[in-house]
C-alpha cells in the first residue's frame, strides 16, 4: 500500500516534469517573441525587455530558470499585464473556479447517482424512461449550447437569475447547471447500468435469501458494489469540469481561471498560458490521485501493490 502510494507519487512527479518540459518547448516553438505585435518597438526597448525577462539567454538556461521557478511555486510574470504575475492571475481566478467547480461536482454526485438508482429500480417503467431520455439529451447536447439556451430563457426572458457574474447567489445556478449537465447524465447512465448488473449477481440473491431487509440489501450489498465504476470516472469528471469551465466562464462572464486562460490565449500571453496549463495539470493529477485512493477504500478487493499491472 505505502509502496504503491510512493510509486504513484513518483509517477506524478515524472508526469509533471514531462508536462512542464512539453509546455515550455511548445510555447517557445511559437514563431515570434512575446513582444511581437503590430506596434513595432524601438530596438533598445525590445532589448531591454528581453534582458528583463531573460529572453536573451540561451533556451536551455531559460528552461532551467523556468523549472527552478516552477519548483518554488513561482510561475513567472505575465507578458501582457505589466506588474501582474501568473501566480496572481491564478490566485485571483481560483476561488471562482473552485466554487463553481465544487458545486458542479456536488450536483453531479448528488443528482446523477440517485437518478441512476431510481432508473435502475424502476427498469422499463416510466421513471426509467424519463431519466434515460433526459440523460441521453444531456450527453448529446454540448455544454455551451445548454449554457446559452439556459442564459436566454432564465436570465434574458424570465429574468429569474442575473445574466452574468456571481455577486448574487442566484448567479451560481446557470453556470453550475451548464457545467454539470453532461456529467449528471453520464453518471446517471453509468450508475443505472452498473446497478442493474449488480442486482443480477448471486450475492444479491443470497443476501435476500438469508432474510436481510430490502434496504440493507440494496444499500449495503448493491449500491456499494455498483458505485465502484462511478468512483473511477470521478477523476476524469473533475478534469472535465475544470476544462469545461473555459467556455462556461466565458459565457457567463465569471472571473475564474478558465476565462483568464482563454483570455491569455487570445492575448498570446505565453507565460500565462504556460503557467495556467501547468497549474491545471498539477491540480488534475492530484485530483485523480485522490480519486484512486478513494477507490482503494471503497473496494476492498483491490490490493494495490507497487508492481501491480
Amino acid at each position, binding site marked *: 500500500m505505502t509502496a504503491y502510494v510512493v510509486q504513484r507519487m513518483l*509517477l*506524478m512527479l*515524472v*508526469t509533471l516534469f*514531462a*508536462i512542464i518540459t*512539453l*509546455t515550455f518547448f*511548445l*510555447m517557445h*516553438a*511559437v514563431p515570434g517573441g512575446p513582444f511581437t505585435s503590430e506596434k513595432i518597438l524601438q530596438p533598445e526597448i525590445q532589448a531591454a525587455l528581453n534582458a528583463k525577462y531573460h529572453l536573451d539567454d540561451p533556451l536551455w538556461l531559460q528552461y532551467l530558470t523556468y523549472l527552478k521557478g516552477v519548483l518554488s511555486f513561482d510561475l513567472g510574470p505575465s507578458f501582457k499585464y505589466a506588474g501582474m504575475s501568473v501566480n496572481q492571475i491564478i490566485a485571483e481566478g481560483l476561488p471562482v473556479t473552485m466554487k463553481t467547480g465544487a458545486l458542479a461536482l456536488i450536483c453531479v454526485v448528488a443528482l446523477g447517482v440517485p437518478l441512476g438508482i431510481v432508473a435502475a429500480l424502476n427498469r422499463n417503467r416510466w421513471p426509467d424512461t424519463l431519466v434515460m431520455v433526459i440523460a*441521453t*439529451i444531456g*450527453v*448529446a*447536447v*454540448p455544454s*455551451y*449550447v445548454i449554457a*446559452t*439556451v439556459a*442564459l*436566454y430563457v432564465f436570465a*434574458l426572458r424570465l429574468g429569474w437569475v442575473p445574466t452574468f457574474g456571481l455577486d448574487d447567489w442566484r448567479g451560481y445556478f446557470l453556470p453550475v447547471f451548464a457545467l454539470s449537465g453532461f456529467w449528471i447524465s453520464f453518471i446517471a447512465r453509468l450508475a443505472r447500468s452498473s446497478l442493474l448488473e449488480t442486482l443480477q449477481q448471486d450475492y444479491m440473491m443470497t443476501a435476500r435469501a438469508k432474510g436481510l431487509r430490502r434496504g440493507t440489501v440494496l444499500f449495503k450489498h448493491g449500491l456499494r458494489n455498483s458505485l465502484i465504476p462511478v468512483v473511477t470516472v470521478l477523476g476524469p469528471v473533475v*478534469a*472535465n469540469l*475544470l*476544462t469545461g469551465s*473555459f*467556455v462556461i466562464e*466565458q*459565457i457567463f462572464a465569471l472571473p475564474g481561471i478558465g476565462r483568464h486562460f*482563454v483570455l491569455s*490565449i*487570445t492575448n*498570446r500571453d505565453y507565460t500565462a*498560458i504556460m503557467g495556467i*496549463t501547468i497549474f*491545471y*495539470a498539477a491540480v*488534475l*493529477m492530484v485530483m*485523480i490521485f485522490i480519486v484512486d485512493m478513494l477507490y482503494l477504500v471503497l473496494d476492498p478487493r483491490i490490493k494495490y501493490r507497487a508492481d501491480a*499491472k
Partner: protein
Amino acid sequence: MTDTHIAPEMWAPATRDGAAAEYIAAPSLTFWQDVRKRLWANKPAMLGLGFIILLVLAAIFGPLLSRHTYFEQNLKLSNIPPLFQTYEVTDGAGATTRFFFNSGNLNLYEVTPSGEVAGLLRATKKDLIKKQQQFKFGDREVVLDTARQQLSFADGAALAPSGWQWNMSHWLGTDQLGRDVLARQLYGARISLTVAFVATLVNFFIGVFYGGLAGYLGGKADTIMMRVVEVISTIPLTLYVILIMVVFNSGFLSVVLAIGSVYWVDMARIVRGQILTLKQQDYVAAARTMGASTPRILVRHLLPNSVGPILVTLTMLIPSAIFIESFMSFIGLGVTPPEASWGTLTSEAVETLRAYPYQLFFPAAAISLTMFAFNFLGDGLRDALDPRLRT
C-alpha cells in the same frame, strides 16, 4: 369442466428421427452476418446510421447545390429570419407592396409575391425624438413606431399582418453579415465532419500501431510503452489540444493535427488488450510455425479479430472529435473565418443571442442531432458485437 377431446393419434409414441434432431432450423450465419442482423433490428442505431448517411450526403452535395456560397456577404440583408409575418400596402394606383418587419434591427424589407426577399425599404423620414420612421408606398404613408414596434398608417389606423411567409431566398435566414445560414450550415457540416473523420483516422492509425506493437511485443517493451500511455493519459488532453492550436495557429489543418495527435490513447489501450489475449490463440502459433512474419501476423490475424472493439471505439471517437472541434472553435481556436464549422456558427449565433435567439437553433441542433446519431450507432454496434448478449 367439459371433456377435452384429444385425437387418438396424439397418444401414439413419437417416432425418433435422427435426421430431424440434426436439422438446423435457422440458417447458419457468420459472425458479421449476425452482427448486421442484430444491428438492423436495433431501431435507434439504424436511425442514427440513416441520419449520418444523410448528413454526409448533405455535407458533400449540399454546398454544390446551394444558390449561395458560405462566404458571400450582403450587409443590406443581414439577420433575416427564415420565417416572417408579412404586411401588404396597396397605394392609390393599385400597386401592392409586400414587406415584413424585422424586429431585431428595426428594418422593413420588401418581399416578392413568391416569398423572396427583394431588399431593404428606405425610410423617407426618420423622427428620432418620437422614435418613428415613415415609409412611402406611392401615395400612402406607413409609420413605424420603433419603440412600440408597431406599424400604422399615417391616419393612425393600425396595419394588420397579411400572413406568414417562409423566406424563399434564404431558407434558414441570414447571419449578421448577411450570409446564407443554410449554405454556412452545410459548409460547416463539411468542415466539422471532415475534421472528425480525419482526426479519428489519424487516431486510429497511431492507436492501432502503438497498441498493436505494445501488445504484440509484450514484456519490457509493453511495460515501457504502457507507462508512456499512462503518463499521457494523466495530462488533461483538452489543454494539449489548446496548446498545439496556439503553436500552429488556428486553421483547419491544425485542428485535425491537434485532435488527431492527442486522442489515440484509448485506442492504443483497447488494441493492446485485444492483442494480448488474441496472441495466445492457437492460430497465431500455427501461423508462426508456417513462417508468417510479425507484420503479417499482426495485420492478417490479430487486427481483423479485434475489429469489433476498434469499431466501437471509432464510432465513439467521431462525436467527441466533433465536440472538441466545436469547443475549440467556440473559444476562438478553430477554423478561421470566413470558413465555418458548427462550433464557429454556434459562437457567432451566441453573439447575436439577444436580438436573434433563433440563430442559435440550427447549429446547436446540428451538433446535438449528430451526437445523438453517433451515440446511438455506437451503442447499437457495441450491443451487436458483444457475444455475451447473443440470444
